[in-house]
């Protein structure tokens, strides 16, 4: 329950994944990105990170196959236990302070069950809009680790989109807080501001509309930057 213990566990997982040669093939998404943005991106060092017990890894699609890595075995050694959801074999990995999940972009109409990643001995859950994150990765160096995370501008816009689809208010609040936290910092830099607007302009009209509707409703102060 202490953030330090939690961070230590996260770093241990990342270290083990890096040693096994799998970290560079995955993208860290979710709230733990904020932890790395604070250290790796100028201007985002004052970012506030809300406490989270979820650590999510995005498996890019198509997954670049390479050498085989037994991820469940690595997690077992670190004290994680698999928690199975339903009969599909989809597992998340639980720890006293954390839950680790593997997610994959949902393409087209999606599949009826989780996607098996044979090289990694895991199944990943399909989620919509993740390709938006997967298409804009950046690398951050931190304590000997090279962690791939989504571009923070993309991360923030993605959070605004998914917040509109959340049923649970607490999840929605967390998404909005993360998005606004990042955008407030990015909008301080005119170059970044222009870049965010350029990204927004290239998005499918439906996505753009969702972003503008969400920001107009919750953060009218930010909306003026989008609509400049």
């Amino acid at each position, binding site marked *: 329950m202490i953030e330090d213990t939690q961070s230590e566990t996260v770093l241990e997982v990342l270290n083990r994944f890096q040693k096994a040669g799998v970290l560079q093939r995955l993208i860290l998404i979710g709230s733990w990105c904020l932890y790395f943005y604070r250290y790796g991106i100028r201007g985002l060092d004052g970012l506030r990170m809300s406490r989270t017990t979820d650590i999510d890894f995005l498996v890019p699609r198509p997954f670049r196959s390479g050498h085989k890595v037994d991820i469940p075995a690595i997690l077992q050694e670190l004290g994680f*236990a698999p*928690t199975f959801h339903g009969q599909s074999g989809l597992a998340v990995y639980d*720890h006293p302070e954390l839950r680790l999940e593997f997610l994959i972009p949902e393409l087209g109409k999606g599949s009826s069950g989780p996607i098996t990643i044979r090289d990694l001995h895991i199944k990943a859950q399909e989620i919509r809009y993740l390709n938006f994150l997967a298409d804009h990765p950046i690398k951050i160096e931190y304590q000997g680790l090279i962690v791939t995370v989504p571009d923070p501008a993309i991360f923030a816009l993605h959070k605004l989109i998914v917040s509109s689809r959340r049923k649970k208010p607490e999840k929605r609040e967390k998404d909005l807080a993360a998005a606004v936290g990042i955008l407030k910092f990015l909008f301080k830099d005119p170059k970044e501001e222009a870049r965010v607007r350029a990204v927004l302009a290239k998005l499918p009209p439906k996505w753009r509309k969702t972003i503008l509707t969400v920001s107009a409703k919750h953060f009218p102060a930010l909306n003026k930057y989008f609509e400049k």
Partner: protein
Amino acid sequence: MKVLKGILKEEEQRLKEAQGSYEREIGKLPKGSVQIKKIKERDYAYRAYRKGERVVYEYAGDLKPEELKELGKKIELRRLYEQKLREVRQNLREVRRMVRD
């Protein structure tokens, strides 16, 4: 406040699931420790574990070195999972207290 309660409820649910997962995995793993007894110049492996008040020494069979190593690893994993289960239960107590308050 409602949002905070929601987050805590969600964490309570996660911890309950984690508790179930650790209990299930522990149930699959052997308990105790591996002990080697030398009898007439030969080594015999026993699994020692507590059953109520007494310690039981169970002959592990005629194990090859790699099988013995595997048994030791499973016992170690059980210990690790037992420690994690204690932590999960402690966290669950804390979260439940916060939900009540």
